[in-house]
Protein backbone atom coordinates (compact mmCIF):
# COMPACT_ATOMS: atom_id res chain seq x y z
CA UNK A 1 0.00 0.00 0.00
CA UNK A 2 2.90 2.33 0.76
CA UNK A 3 4.62 1.37 -2.48
CA UNK A 4 1.52 2.28 -4.47
CA UNK A 5 1.30 5.62 -2.72
CA UNK A 6 4.97 6.57 -3.27
CA UNK A 7 4.98 5.37 -6.88
CA UNK A 8 1.84 7.24 -7.87
CA UNK A 9 3.06 10.32 -5.99
CA UNK A 10 6.26 10.24 -8.00
CA UNK A 11 4.33 9.87 -11.23
CA UNK A 12 2.09 12.77 -10.26
CA UNK A 13 5.10 15.01 -9.58
CA UNK A 14 6.80 14.11 -12.86
CA UNK A 15 3.56 14.57 -14.82
CA UNK A 16 3.00 17.99 -13.23
CA UNK A 17 6.54 18.97 -14.13
CA UNK A 18 5.73 17.84 -17.62
CA UNK A 19 2.67 20.08 -17.66
CA UNK A 20 4.57 23.06 -16.46
CA UNK A 21 7.52 22.72 -18.77
CA UNK A 22 5.63 21.46 -21.79
CA UNK A 23 5.57 23.68 -24.87
CA UNK A 24 2.80 21.97 -26.75
CA UNK A 25 -0.54 22.59 -25.04
CA UNK A 26 -1.97 19.27 -26.00
CA UNK A 27 0.98 17.32 -24.60
CA UNK A 28 0.77 19.43 -21.45
CA UNK A 29 -2.92 18.60 -21.22
CA UNK A 30 -2.27 14.92 -21.43
CA UNK A 31 0.44 15.17 -18.80
CA UNK A 32 -2.10 16.93 -16.63
CA UNK A 33 -4.57 14.10 -17.03
CA UNK A 34 -1.85 11.62 -16.13
CA UNK A 35 -1.00 13.67 -13.05
CA UNK A 36 -4.66 13.77 -11.97
CA UNK A 37 -5.11 10.06 -12.37
CA UNK A 38 -1.94 9.33 -10.43
CA UNK A 39 -3.26 11.50 -7.64
CA UNK A 40 -6.46 9.47 -7.77
CA UNK A 41 -4.27 6.40 -7.33
CA UNK A 42 -2.69 7.91 -4.23
CA UNK A 43 -6.21 8.42 -2.85
CA UNK A 44 -6.96 4.76 -3.32
CA UNK A 45 -3.55 3.92 -1.77
CA UNK A 46 -4.34 6.05 1.22
CA UNK A 47 -7.69 4.40 1.74
CA UNK A 48 -10.11 7.06 0.42
CA UNK A 49 -11.83 5.12 -2.37
CA UNK A 50 -14.76 7.54 -2.64
CA UNK A 51 -12.41 10.51 -3.18
CA UNK A 52 -10.33 8.58 -5.68
CA UNK A 53 -13.40 7.66 -7.66
CA UNK A 54 -14.57 11.27 -7.63
CA UNK A 55 -11.15 12.41 -8.75
CA UNK A 56 -11.13 10.09 -11.69
CA UNK A 57 -14.71 10.71 -12.77
CA UNK A 58 -15.16 14.43 -12.12
CA UNK A 59 -11.74 15.89 -12.16
CA UNK A 60 -9.82 13.84 -14.68
CA UNK A 61 -12.92 13.01 -16.65
CA UNK A 62 -15.16 16.05 -16.82
CA UNK A 63 -12.89 19.02 -16.24
CA UNK A 64 -10.06 17.71 -18.37
CA UNK A 65 -12.45 16.94 -21.15
CA UNK A 66 -13.57 20.53 -20.94
CA UNK A 67 -9.95 21.58 -21.28
CA UNK A 68 -9.46 19.36 -24.26
CA UNK A 69 -12.53 20.84 -25.94
CA UNK A 70 -11.26 24.35 -25.40
CA UNK A 71 -7.80 23.48 -26.68
CA UNK A 72 -9.35 21.91 -29.71
CA UNK A 73 -11.66 24.89 -30.30
CA UNK A 74 -8.74 27.26 -30.18
CA UNK A 75 -6.76 24.72 -32.31
CA UNK A 76 -3.61 25.49 -30.38
CA UNK A 77 -1.58 23.20 -32.52
CA UNK A 78 2.12 23.05 -33.14
CA UNK A 79 2.52 26.73 -34.11
CA UNK A 80 1.57 27.58 -30.50
CA UNK A 81 4.47 25.48 -29.23
CA UNK A 82 7.02 27.55 -31.17
CA UNK A 83 5.51 30.60 -29.55
CA UNK A 84 5.75 28.89 -26.13
CA UNK A 85 9.38 28.06 -26.65
CA UNK A 86 10.06 31.73 -27.37
CA UNK A 87 8.39 32.72 -24.18
CA UNK A 88 10.14 30.17 -22.02
CA UNK A 89 13.60 31.72 -22.09
CA UNK A 90 15.54 30.94 -18.91
CA UNK A 91 15.41 34.57 -17.91
CA UNK A 92 11.63 34.37 -17.50
CA UNK A 93 11.33 31.17 -15.50
CA UNK A 94 14.36 31.35 -13.20
CA UNK A 95 12.96 34.00 -10.88
CA UNK A 96 9.50 32.55 -10.23
CA UNK A 97 10.80 29.00 -9.86
CA UNK A 98 13.29 30.09 -7.24
CA UNK A 99 10.43 31.82 -5.47
CA UNK A 100 8.28 28.68 -5.68
CA UNK A 101 11.24 26.68 -4.42
CA UNK A 102 11.57 29.04 -1.46
CA UNK A 103 7.91 28.59 -0.64
CA UNK A 104 8.30 24.80 -0.92
CA UNK A 105 11.30 24.88 1.39
CA UNK A 106 9.38 26.95 3.91
CA UNK A 107 6.42 24.55 3.77
CA UNK A 108 8.67 21.53 4.07
CA UNK A 109 10.53 23.21 6.92
CA UNK A 110 7.33 23.64 8.88
CA UNK A 111 6.23 20.07 8.11
CA UNK A 112 9.52 18.52 9.14
CA UNK A 113 9.62 20.43 12.40
CA UNK A 114 5.96 19.45 12.98
CA UNK A 115 5.64 17.08 15.96
CA UNK A 116 2.46 15.36 14.74
CA UNK A 117 3.72 11.88 14.09
CA UNK A 118 0.51 10.46 12.81
CA UNK A 119 0.77 7.49 10.57
CA UNK A 120 -1.76 6.47 7.96
CA UNK A 121 -2.54 2.83 8.61
CA UNK A 122 -4.78 0.89 6.31
CA UNK A 123 -8.05 2.24 7.69
CA UNK A 124 -10.03 3.25 4.67
CA UNK A 125 -13.10 5.49 4.95
CA UNK A 126 -15.81 4.28 2.71
CA UNK A 127 -18.32 6.36 0.79
CA UNK A 128 -21.15 5.49 3.22
CA UNK A 129 -19.46 7.37 6.11
CA UNK A 130 -18.79 10.34 3.85
CA UNK A 131 -22.35 10.24 2.50
CA UNK A 132 -23.82 10.25 6.05
CA UNK A 133 -21.81 13.35 6.80
CA UNK A 134 -22.77 15.05 3.58
CA UNK A 135 -26.43 15.11 4.58
CA UNK A 136 -25.61 15.56 8.26
CA UNK A 137 -23.87 18.67 9.57
CA UNK A 138 -22.54 19.61 6.10
CA UNK A 139 -25.99 19.88 4.50
CA UNK A 140 -25.89 23.65 4.20
CA UNK A 141 -22.42 23.64 2.62
CA UNK A 142 -23.53 21.08 0.06
CA UNK A 143 -26.48 23.26 -0.89
CA UNK A 144 -24.14 26.23 -1.22
CA UNK A 145 -21.79 24.15 -3.40
CA UNK A 146 -24.76 23.31 -5.58
CA UNK A 147 -25.63 26.99 -5.94
CA UNK A 148 -22.00 27.75 -6.76
CA UNK A 149 -22.10 25.23 -9.56
CA UNK A 150 -25.35 26.69 -10.83
CA UNK A 151 -23.80 30.18 -10.87
CA UNK A 152 -20.75 28.84 -12.68
CA UNK A 153 -23.03 27.16 -15.17
CA UNK A 154 -24.92 30.35 -15.92
CA UNK A 155 -21.75 32.43 -16.22
CA UNK A 156 -19.94 29.93 -18.39
CA UNK A 157 -22.88 29.60 -20.71
CA UNK A 158 -23.31 33.37 -20.97
CA UNK A 159 -19.60 34.03 -21.47
CA UNK A 160 -19.04 31.14 -23.70
CA UNK A 161 -21.93 32.07 -25.99
CA UNK A 162 -20.49 32.44 -29.40
CA UNK A 163 -20.45 36.07 -30.42
CA UNK A 164 -22.26 35.19 -33.65
CA UNK A 165 -25.18 37.55 -33.18
CA UNK A 166 -23.18 40.80 -33.04
CA UNK A 167 -20.86 39.68 -35.85
CA UNK A 168 -23.94 38.86 -37.83
CA UNK A 169 -25.28 42.35 -37.15
CA UNK A 170 -22.53 44.17 -38.94
CA UNK A 171 -19.63 42.87 -36.95
CA UNK A 172 -18.71 46.21 -35.50
CA UNK A 173 -17.73 44.54 -32.19
Amino acid at each position, binding site marked *: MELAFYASALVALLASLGVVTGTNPVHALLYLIVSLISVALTFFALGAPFAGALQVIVYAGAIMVLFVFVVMMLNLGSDASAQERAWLKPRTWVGPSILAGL*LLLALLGTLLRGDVARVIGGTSIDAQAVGGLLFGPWLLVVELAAMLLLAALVTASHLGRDAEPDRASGGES
Partner: protein
Amino acid sequence: MSGIPMEHGLMVASALFAIGLAGLMVRRNLMFVLMSLEIMLNAAGLAFIVASTAWAEPHGQVMYLMVITLAAAEASVGLALVLQIYRHFRSLDVDAVSQLRG
Protein backbone atom coordinates in the same frame (compact mmCIF):
# COMPACT_ATOMS: atom_id res chain seq x y z
CA MET B 1 3.10 -2.15 6.38
CA SER B 2 4.31 0.47 8.82
CA GLY B 3 1.99 2.98 7.12
CA ILE B 4 2.73 6.28 5.49
CA PRO B 5 3.66 9.12 7.86
CA MET B 6 1.33 12.04 7.25
CA GLU B 7 4.24 14.40 6.61
CA HIS B 8 5.15 12.53 3.45
CA GLY B 9 1.67 12.96 2.09
CA LEU B 10 1.66 16.63 2.87
CA MET B 11 5.13 17.00 1.38
CA VAL B 12 3.89 15.55 -1.86
CA ALA B 13 0.97 17.94 -1.79
CA SER B 14 3.32 20.89 -1.15
CA ALA B 15 5.59 19.81 -3.97
CA LEU B 16 2.65 19.58 -6.33
CA PHE B 17 1.45 22.97 -5.13
CA ALA B 18 4.90 24.52 -5.68
CA ILE B 19 5.13 23.10 -9.18
CA GLY B 20 1.66 24.45 -10.01
CA LEU B 21 2.64 27.80 -8.58
CA ALA B 22 5.82 27.98 -10.61
CA GLY B 23 3.84 27.11 -13.71
CA LEU B 24 1.34 29.85 -12.91
CA MET B 25 4.03 32.48 -12.69
CA VAL B 26 6.21 31.31 -15.55
CA ARG B 27 3.86 30.56 -18.39
CA ARG B 28 2.53 33.39 -20.54
CA ASN B 29 -0.05 31.27 -22.29
CA LEU B 30 -3.38 31.49 -20.52
CA MET B 31 -4.11 27.80 -21.01
CA PHE B 32 -0.96 26.76 -19.21
CA VAL B 33 -1.81 29.18 -16.42
CA LEU B 34 -5.18 27.49 -16.03
CA MET B 35 -3.62 24.07 -16.07
CA SER B 36 -1.09 24.94 -13.38
CA LEU B 37 -4.01 26.33 -11.43
CA GLU B 38 -5.70 22.96 -11.68
CA ILE B 39 -2.55 21.32 -10.35
CA MET B 40 -2.48 23.65 -7.35
CA LEU B 41 -6.15 22.89 -6.63
CA ASN B 42 -5.47 19.24 -6.92
CA ALA B 43 -2.57 19.56 -4.50
CA ALA B 44 -4.90 21.17 -2.00
CA GLY B 45 -7.39 18.30 -2.47
CA LEU B 46 -4.55 15.81 -1.88
CA ALA B 47 -3.61 17.54 1.35
CA PHE B 48 -7.23 17.26 2.55
CA ILE B 49 -7.43 13.60 1.79
CA VAL B 50 -4.06 12.89 3.46
CA ALA B 51 -5.17 14.66 6.58
CA SER B 52 -8.58 13.02 6.50
CA THR B 53 -7.20 9.52 6.30
CA ALA B 54 -4.46 10.33 8.86
CA TRP B 55 -7.15 11.41 11.40
CA ALA B 56 -9.56 8.79 10.14
CA GLU B 57 -12.21 11.48 9.81
CA PRO B 58 -14.56 11.53 6.79
CA HIS B 59 -14.72 15.36 7.04
CA GLY B 60 -11.59 15.61 4.95
CA GLN B 61 -13.26 13.90 2.06
CA VAL B 62 -16.28 16.17 2.30
CA MET B 63 -13.93 19.09 2.00
CA TYR B 64 -12.28 17.37 -0.93
CA LEU B 65 -15.72 17.23 -2.54
CA MET B 66 -15.98 20.98 -2.05
CA VAL B 67 -12.53 21.42 -3.64
CA ILE B 68 -13.65 19.53 -6.66
CA THR B 69 -16.84 21.56 -7.06
CA LEU B 70 -14.74 24.68 -6.77
CA ALA B 71 -12.28 23.40 -9.36
CA ALA B 72 -15.12 22.54 -11.72
CA ALA B 73 -16.80 25.92 -11.35
CA GLU B 74 -13.53 27.76 -11.68
CA ALA B 75 -12.40 25.77 -14.71
CA SER B 76 -15.65 26.30 -16.56
CA VAL B 77 -15.72 30.03 -16.00
CA GLY B 78 -11.98 30.25 -16.67
CA LEU B 79 -12.25 28.49 -19.96
CA ALA B 80 -15.27 30.57 -21.01
CA LEU B 81 -13.17 33.66 -20.31
CA VAL B 82 -10.28 32.21 -22.24
CA LEU B 83 -12.58 31.77 -25.20
CA GLN B 84 -13.72 35.38 -25.00
CA ILE B 85 -10.17 36.63 -24.63
CA TYR B 86 -8.97 34.61 -27.56
CA ARG B 87 -11.85 35.91 -29.69
CA HIS B 88 -11.17 39.52 -28.59
CA PHE B 89 -7.37 39.62 -28.48
CA ARG B 90 -6.62 36.97 -31.08
CA SER B 91 -3.89 35.66 -28.73
CA LEU B 92 -3.67 33.96 -25.39
CA ASP B 93 -0.74 35.98 -24.17
CA VAL B 94 -1.38 36.95 -20.59
CA ASP B 95 0.59 40.17 -20.83
CA ALA B 96 -1.54 41.36 -23.75
CA VAL B 97 -4.51 41.43 -21.43
CA SER B 98 -3.43 44.41 -19.34
CA GLN B 99 -6.00 47.14 -19.94
CA LEU B 100 -6.83 47.38 -16.25
CA ARG B 101 -3.75 49.49 -15.68
CA GLY B 102 -3.47 51.78 -12.59
